[in-house]
């Protein structure tokens, strides 16, 4: 099975304020967008982040061929347990997920 990074042009993550991280998957084409949109479930992403699925926000944005998923930060930004002040490292977690086809 391919991974998200094999199909997408770019996957980035960034803080959306101190309490959220948002992951933007730039699919690059309508075809990749369809495959990622359909093959990457919100449930699987929630499991990756060890976070209840109902807390995630997901936006499948066809006009940009972007799948965007926002997750409450696993650690609030800058707390003692936080490992990544700007939240950019979490992109790898999603980029390395498998696409079900």
């Amino acid at each position, binding site marked *: 099975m391919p991974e998200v990074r094999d199909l997408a042009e770019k996957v980035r993550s*960034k*803080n*959306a*304020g*101190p*309490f*959220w991280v*948002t992951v*933007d998957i*730039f699919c690059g084409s309508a075809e990749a967008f369809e495959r990622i949109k359909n093959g990457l479930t919100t449930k699987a992403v929630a499991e*990756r*982040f*060890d976070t209840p699925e109902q*807390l995630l*926000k997901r*936006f499948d*944005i066809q*006009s*940009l061929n*972007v799948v*965007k998923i*926002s997750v*409450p930060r*696993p650690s*609030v*930004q*800058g*707390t*003692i347990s936080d*490992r*990544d*002040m*700007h939240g950019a*490292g*979490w992109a*790898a*977690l999603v980029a*390395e997920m498998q696409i079900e086809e």
Partner: protein
Amino acid sequence: MVRVLIPSGALGLGYDHDALERGIANKPDLIAIDGGSTDSGPSYLGRGVSKYARSSTKLEWAGLMDAARRAGCPLVIGTAGTCGAGSAVDWLVEITQEILTERGETAKIAVLKSDQPANRVVDALGANWITPLTPAPDIDAPMLESCTNIVALAGVEQITCALDTGADIVIAGRTTDTAIIAALPIAKGIDPGPAWHAAKIGECGALCATNPQSGVIQIDWEGAAFTLTPLADDARATPHTVSAHMLYENADPYLLHEPGGTLDVTEARYDALDDTRVRVTGSVWRKANGYNVKLEGARVAGYQTVVLAVVRDPHYVTNAATWAKDIIAKCTDKALQRTSATADDFTIEIRLIGQNSVLGDLETRVADPVEIGALGLVTAKTPELANEIGKLLNPYLLHHPLTREEEVPTFAFPFSPAEIDRGPVYEFCLNHVMWLDDPMDAFTLEVLDA
């Protein structure tokens, strides 16, 4: 038409001088720049200081003061000094006065402060005028009183008050990134929908275009539309780059909550005017019932001492997790035995750089690194205790063997002393909004003739 020039995403990041000159020649009504955000973490708000070097800030700010003077328009900065706390605002006011003195110039400066005394927030909490956002830490009076700084994010109303003083320069404490851009068009009668939308697209400077480093962009509002023009030679805005910017640092790409309402861009249209400019229509502002401002607060979470050791021996690289876990257990025991600390007074953590130091338990990849950095973190209730336990951790990170049978190893310390006192570490402790009768109730405005 209303025209705002945005030199870059933040003061301190630099801007393209040729592009700025073009912007000045286009006679903007305002030059607006953001001075900060929470993005660099709670320490800046906790301490009330800027992240950027004074030298960079002064140089760039002097350039913008000159630009505004030549353009004949006001200059506004929001979230001055990274965090927008009063002390950071004062720091930029001092820099401004220094520049004016050096140039033999004078200016009228409006200083908007966003600081919230703890008792104001405590009273608001008691009166049910505080609403938590999701996710929000629990708050109570002692917690609020333990914050070293609390600020509220100003919106367009407060920035408009500051501009209405006729000031040449507005130096504002914490504001939303967008408010400093949206205030003037709204005051001049532009619909808040396109005003806020353009501000969100423009607040990071040329990040909404190609060549994002170039910084400088211009926004023109006319009727219900706005046009975005990047001004650097090789920067182009396209419907894709502009609409994609709504994704950036936003949990929701369609709805943006601001003081007094919500921007809704679900129906927005992005049209290329030519190769470089994009025109946007269809942005909607949904006015809220009542008026609230978001709060940010930071407080000391403990004091930290860190020790970095680098492990190169392949046997230890392979078994680093076991080794680190054993060190934490043994050093914790030793700290409990040899100091008066209890288990609640400190934590010891070792992050394995090269293994999972960014993602921790969420890491899924396993690799075979050449070396591993063992970053020991001691966090304690006092700086003395953190340092003392850092010193207890030092010999373990230098010499701890995996088993009793093997020869005592020695790992690489890059520094002497190996333990580094980081002082207080801060945490954000508010994700709440505070309701206000009048937008200026929680803000102060002062005008200086400097």
